[in-house]
C-alpha cells in the first residue's frame, strides 16, 4: 500500500512538473483517496475492476506538440490491475506510433475452496493419507462401506482447506505504427500480446464416481502481428493485409487425484472408481495465418463497388496425451491404455481453411434511390484428418470401452460448412419527410457432412420507414420476415453406428431447423424544445421452429427503452430512463426410450421467461454557477427468471424450478468545486445493494451428495462452493483534478 501511494504521488508530481516545464504542452491528472467496505465478499462488486483502498490516480493525460511533432501519454486507474495506459508519438501525417497497455481482471469468486493442491502446473493432488483412508472404506466392487463417514471426512477436509479465489487477469499490450511516406500510400503494422493468468472453475469427472470441480489454472499467451498496405489512386483504392496469430497454453494437461482411489486398478466387471488419477488435455496451442485483399472503385451514379477476399488457415498439432492415465487398463491386443503407442496418431495435424468472398455495390442510380447489392460467400473447410480409435477408449479413466456392434469405435469428424448470402437493400426518399426501405435476401448453408441437414435456405423480406414529420422528431420502423427451410433431413446421422438411434427422430436442432423469423424494431427521438429531449426504442422478434416436435420450439424477445432529458434552466439538468426486456422460450423433450414416437414415454415442455429491467435517474445542479456542481444518480437493474415445466403424463413430478433474480440498487452523490480554471476538488459517495436468489448459483455445497441414494459416491460432486452472495457496499472518494 505504501509503495502504491508513493508511486502515485511521484507520478502525479511528475505530471504536474512536466506541465509547468514543457512550453507547448497541456494535460490533467485526477488523484485522491478512496475507501470502501462490503458486507460479504461477493466478487461481483469488483467483477471487472481492482478497487484499492487509500490513494489512487484516477486518470492522467499529458500532451506535447511542436509543429509537426506531437506526443501524448494518458491512462486510467494507474498501478491497479484494471489500469489502462496509452501513448502516441507522431510526426504530421508521415508516421504515428501508438502503444497501449491495458489490464482487465475478471473476478469470479472470493469464497471458493479446494483441498486439491496444485503441486505442479495443472497437477492437483490430495494428501495420500486422505486417499488411503477413503480407500479403506471401499468394499470390493467399488461400494463404500461407510458412506456417511466418507462424506464427513471430505466435508472436514473442505472446511480446513484454504480459500482459492477464482478469476482471470487479462493483460493486453498493443503497438501500432502507421505510415504515410508518400502520396496515395498508407501502411500499418500492428502487434498485440494478450496474457491471461488466473484460475477458473472446471468440472472433471470419474463418470460421476465422483465429479470434482477444480480451480484450474489459466496461463495463456496470444501474439498477433498484422501488416496492412493501402493504395489510393483517383477513384480506386486497394488494401492488402497479412497476419499471424499464435496461441500458446502453458497448461496443456490437467491431472487430478481421485479422492477414493490411491492406486490404479481394473475390475473386470462393474468396475467403478478404479483410476487413481484423471487426466485431460486442455486447450491446444494453435496458429492462424491470414491474408485479406480488397479493391474498391467509385463508379458513376455516386456508386462504389468493393470486393474483399479473405483467406485464413488455422493449424493445431499439439502432441496427444494417452487414452487414459490409468496404468491398469489394457486394450485389445494387450496394449496398455496409458501407452501413447495405443493411439492411431501422436498428434492431430489439424487444419481448417476459411475463405470469405464479399462483393458489394452501393450507389444512387436515381437521385432519390440509394441501394446496395451484396453477395457473400463464407466457406469453412476443415481438412483435419479423421482418426479411428479401433483399440477402444477410456471416457473417464475408469474403464475401457472396447469397440463392439453396439458401440462402434469412435471416429473423429471434421465439420465443414459454407454460407452464402445474396442481398438487396434499397432506400427511397419519397419527400423530405419520409424515406422507405426494402430488404430482400437469400441465404443458403451447406454442411457437407456429418450434420443432419446437408443444405438449407432462407428467404428474407423486409421493409421500413424513416419519417421526419417535424424538424425535431425522427421516427423509424422496420420489419423483416425470414423463412428458413431445410432441403432434406438425414435421420441416419442420429444412428449411433450400430443401427440404433442416438437421438429422437423428431429432434430438430435449432441452429439448422426450419424456422420462421419475424423481427420488428422501431425508434423515435423528439426534442420539442431546447429544454426537453425524448427518445424511445423498441425491439421484438420471434423465432418459430414450427416443425420441431422435439427441441427448441420458439423464442420470443421483446425490448423497450425510453429516456428523457429535461433542462429546466442553465444550472439544472435532469434525465431518466427505463428499459424492459423479456425473452420467452419454449422447448420440448422426452424421457424414456421412445425415439420414433413423440407421444410415448414422458414428453415434457419447458417454458422459460427471462425478464430484465434497467432504470436510471440523474440530476445535476450548479449550486454556484461555474464554481460548485452537485450531482446524484440512481441506477436499478433486475434480472428475473421463471421456469415453468410440464409433463402431462406425470404432472406431479414436473414441479417448476424456483424463480430466481439478480437485483442491484446503486445510488451515488458527488460534488465538484472548480476552485480555479486549472484546479478542481471533488468528493463522491456510492452505495450499492446487490441481492441474488438463484438456485443455480447459490446453495452450492462443497460436498454434493444425493441424500436419497444409498451409495452417495455413485453420484457425488465435490465442488468449489462458487456461490453468489448478496451484499451491500459503501464507497467514499475524495479527489482533485489539476489541469495545466
Amino acid at each position: 500500500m505504501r509503495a502504491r501511494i508513493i508511486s502515485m504521488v511521484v507520478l502525479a508530481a511528475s505530471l504536474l512538473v512536466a506541465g509547468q516545464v514543457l512550453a507547448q504542452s497541456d494535460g490533467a491528472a485526477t488523484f485522491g483517496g478512496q475507501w470502501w467496505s462490503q458486507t460479504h465478499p461477493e466478487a461481483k462488486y469488483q467483477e471487472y475492476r481492482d478497487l484499492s483502498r487509500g490513494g489512487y490516480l484516477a486518470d492522467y493525460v499529458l500532451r506535447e506538440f511542436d509543429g509537426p511533432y506531437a506526443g501524448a501519454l494518458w491512462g486510467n486507474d494507474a498501478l491497479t490491475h484494471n489500469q489502462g495506459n496509452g501513448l502516441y508519438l507522431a510526426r504530421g501525417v508521415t508516421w504515428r506510433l501508438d502503444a497501449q497497455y491495458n489490464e482487465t481482471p475478471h473476478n469470479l469468486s472470493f469464497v471458493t475452496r479446494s483441498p486439491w493442491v496444485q503441486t505442479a502446473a495443472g497437477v492437483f493432488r490430495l494428501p495420500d493419507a486422505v486417499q488411503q483412508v477413503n480407500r479403506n472404506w471401499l468394499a470390493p466392487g467399488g461400494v463404500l462401506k461407510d458412506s456417511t463417514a466418507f462424506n464427513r471426512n471430505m466435508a472436514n477436509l473442505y472446511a480446513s482447506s484454504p480459500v482459492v479465489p477464482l478469476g482471470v487477469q487479462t493483460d493486453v499490450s498493443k503497438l501500432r505504427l502507421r505510415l504515410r511516406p508518400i502520396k496515395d500510400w498508407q501502411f500499418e503494422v500492428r502487434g498485440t500480446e494478450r496474457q491471461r493468468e488466473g484460475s477458473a472453475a472446471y468440472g472433471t469427472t470419474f463418470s460421476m464416481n465422483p465429479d470434482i470441480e477444480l480451480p484450474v489454472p489459466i496461463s495463456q499467451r496470444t501474439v498477433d502481428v498484422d501488416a496492412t498496405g493501402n493504395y489510393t489512386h483517383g477513384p480506386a483504392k486497394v488494401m492488402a493485409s497479412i497476419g499471424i496469430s499464435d496461441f500458446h497454453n502453458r497448461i496443456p494437461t490437467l491431472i487430478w487425484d481421485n479422492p477414493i482411489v490411491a492406486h490404479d486398478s481394473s475390475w473386470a466387471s462393474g468396475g467403478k472408481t478404479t483410476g487413481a488419477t484423471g487426466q485431460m488435455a486442455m486447450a491446444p496451442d494453435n496458429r492462424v495465418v491470414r491474408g485479406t485483399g480488397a479493391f474498391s472503385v467509385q463508379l458513376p451514379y455516386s456508386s462504389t463497388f468493393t470486393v474483399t477476399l479473405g483467406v485464413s488457415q488455422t493449424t493445431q498439432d499439439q502432441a496427444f496425451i494417452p487414452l487414459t492415465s490409468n496404468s491398469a487398463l489394457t486394450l485389445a491386443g494387450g496394449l496398455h491404455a496409458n501407452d501413447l503407442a495405443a493411439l492411431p496418431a501422436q498428434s492431430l495435424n489439424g487444419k481448417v481453411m476459411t475463405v470469405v468472398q464479399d462483393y458489394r455495390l452501393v450507389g444512387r442510380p436515381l437521385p432519390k434511390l440509394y441501394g446496395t447489392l451484396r453477395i457473400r460467400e463464407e466457406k469453412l473447410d476443415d481438412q483435419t484428418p479423421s482418426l479411428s480409435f479401433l483399440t477402444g477408449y477410456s471416457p473417464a479413466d475408469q474403464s475401457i470401452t472396447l469397440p463392439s456392434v453396439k458401440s462402434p469405435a469412435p471416429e473423429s469428424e471434421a465439420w465443414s460448412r459454407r454460407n452464402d448470402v445474396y442481398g438487396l437493400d434499397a432506400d427511397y426518399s419519397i419527400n423530405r419527410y419520409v424515406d422507405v426501405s426494402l430488404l430482400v435476401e437469400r441465404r443458403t448453408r451447406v454442411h457437407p457432412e456429418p450434420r443432419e441437414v446437408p443444405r438449407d435456405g432462407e428467404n428474407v423480406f423486409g421493409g421500413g420507414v424513416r419519417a421526419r414529420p417535424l424538424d425535431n422528431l425522427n421516427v423509424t420502423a422496420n420489419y423483416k420476415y425470414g423463412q428458413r427451410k431445410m432441403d432434406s433431413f438425414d435421420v441416419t446421422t442420429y444412428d449411433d453406428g450400430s443401427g440404433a438411434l442416438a437421438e429422437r427422430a423428431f429432434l430438430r436442432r435449432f441452429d439448422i431447423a426450419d424456422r420462421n423469423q419475424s423481427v420488428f424494431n422501431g425508434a423515435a427521438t423528439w426534442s420539442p424544445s431546447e429544454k426537453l429531449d425524448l427518445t424511445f426504442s423498441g425491439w421484438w422478434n420471434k423465432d418459430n421452429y414450427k416443425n420441431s416436435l422435439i427441441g427448441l420450439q420458439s423464442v420470443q424477445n421483446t425490448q423497450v427503452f425510453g429516456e428523457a432529458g429535461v433542462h429546466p434552466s442553465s444550472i439544472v439538468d435532469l434525465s431518466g430512463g427505463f428499459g424492459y426486456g423479456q425473452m420467452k422460450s419454449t422447448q420440448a423433450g422426452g424421457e424414456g426410450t421412445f425415439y420414433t414416437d413423440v407421444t410415448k414415454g414422458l414428453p415434457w415442455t419447458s417454458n422459460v421467461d427471462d425478464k430484465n429491467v434497467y432504470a436510471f435517474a440523474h440530476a445535476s445542479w450548479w449550486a454556484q454557477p461555474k464554481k460548485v456542481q452537485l450531482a446524484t444518480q440512481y441506477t436499478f437493474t433486475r434480472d428475473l427468471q421463471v421456469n415453468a415445466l410440464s409433463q402431462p403424463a406425470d404432472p406431479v413430478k414436473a414441479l417448476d424450478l424456483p424463480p430466481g433474480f439478480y437485483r442491484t440498487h446503486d445510488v451515488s452523490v458527488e460534488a465538484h468545486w472548480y476552485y480555479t480554471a486549472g484546479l478542481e476538488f471533488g468528493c463522491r459517495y456510492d452505495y450499492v445493494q446487490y441481492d441474488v436468489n438463484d438456485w443455480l448459483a447459490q446453495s452450492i455445497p462443497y460436498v454434493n451428495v444425493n441424500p436419497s441414494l444409498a451409495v452417495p459416491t455413485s453420484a457425488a460432486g465435490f465442488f468449489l462452493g462458487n456461490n453468489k452472495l448478496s451484499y451491500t457496499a459503501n464507497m467514499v472518494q475524495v479527489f482533485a483534478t489539476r489541469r495545466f
Partner: protein
Amino acid sequence: MRRGLMLSAVLLGTSLLMVAASQVMADPTMAGSEACKDCHQKEYSQYLTTSHGRAQSDGAALPEKMGCETCHGAGSAHVAAGGDTKDPGFATIQRPDKQAAAKANEICLGCHKGGEQFYWQHSAHARKDLACVGCHSIHNSKDGAHAKLLKAETTTALCLGCHKSNHLAMGKSSHMPIGTNGMGCNDCHNPHGSAGPKQIRALTTNDLCLSCHADKRGPFLWEHAPVRENCLTCHEAHSSSNDKMLVARRPFLCQRCHTPSGHPGNLYDAPRLGTSALQVVNRSCSNCHSQIHGSNSPSGKTFLR
C-alpha cells in the same frame, strides 16, 4: 409603353446588380490559415494541437496542402467581409457541421480513404446519413488525449449516445467488460464499416470471438458442431441473464439439441434439484462435460476429457 420601359429598366437594373453581386461572390480564393487566426484564435490554437494541425506542417503525402480551408473552403470572401455577417461574402465559408452529411463527409473522405475508413461507403452509418462530425469534433474533442477527436470521453460513451437500448443490455447480470479500460464498443465493431457482419472487426463472427478466446480456436480432435457453426448459437454477444452470457440456462440450453434416453433427455425439475442431481446443480451438464468447446483428449469424444 411607359410601363414597359419601367419594367425593362427594373429588369436591367436587377440584372446588373446580379452580375455585380456575382462578381463579388465569384470564386473566393484561398486566403491561408494565417488569415483565420485573427478572429478565430481559440479554434486555431486548438486546431494546431490536433492531427489536422500537424498535417499543416507535415502533410506532403496528402492530396492537398492542409489548412483551415481544406475543410472550410476558400475563405477570401469570408475574410474580406471582416466579420460583417450581412456581407454576402461572410456566409461563403463552409461549416461541415451545418452541411448535409454526404457533402460534409466528402471533405473528410478526401483524406481518410483507406485504413479504418476503407468500407465507409458500405457502412450502416453511411446508409443512415450520419456525418463524420456527428461523432468527431475537430475543434472541441473530449477524449483526453485527443487521439481520436471524439465528441465524448470514450468510444463507448459515444456509441451509447445513440444506441441507448444497450444500457439495458449492460444492466444484465452477465455482460462483457464494456466500458472498462480493457474494452470498448470499437474493440469489436468498426463504426466506419467493415467487410464482416454487423461492422465487426473480422470477416466472420467466430473469427472475432476467437481473436480473444484463442483457446477455443482448435481445430480439435473432437469438435462440437455448433461451436464451429457460430459462437452465437449458445452465447449472446453483449450480455445475458445467464451465466457465461449463455442464451439459456443449462441444462435446458443443452437439451435444445440433446434428448436421448437417460440423463440428456430427463426433465430437470424441482424434485431433481432437491435430490442434488449432478445434472442440475452448480455447473449442470458442464459438471462433467467441461470440454464443451471441443476436446483434444483422445478419450474426449463425449467432452468428459
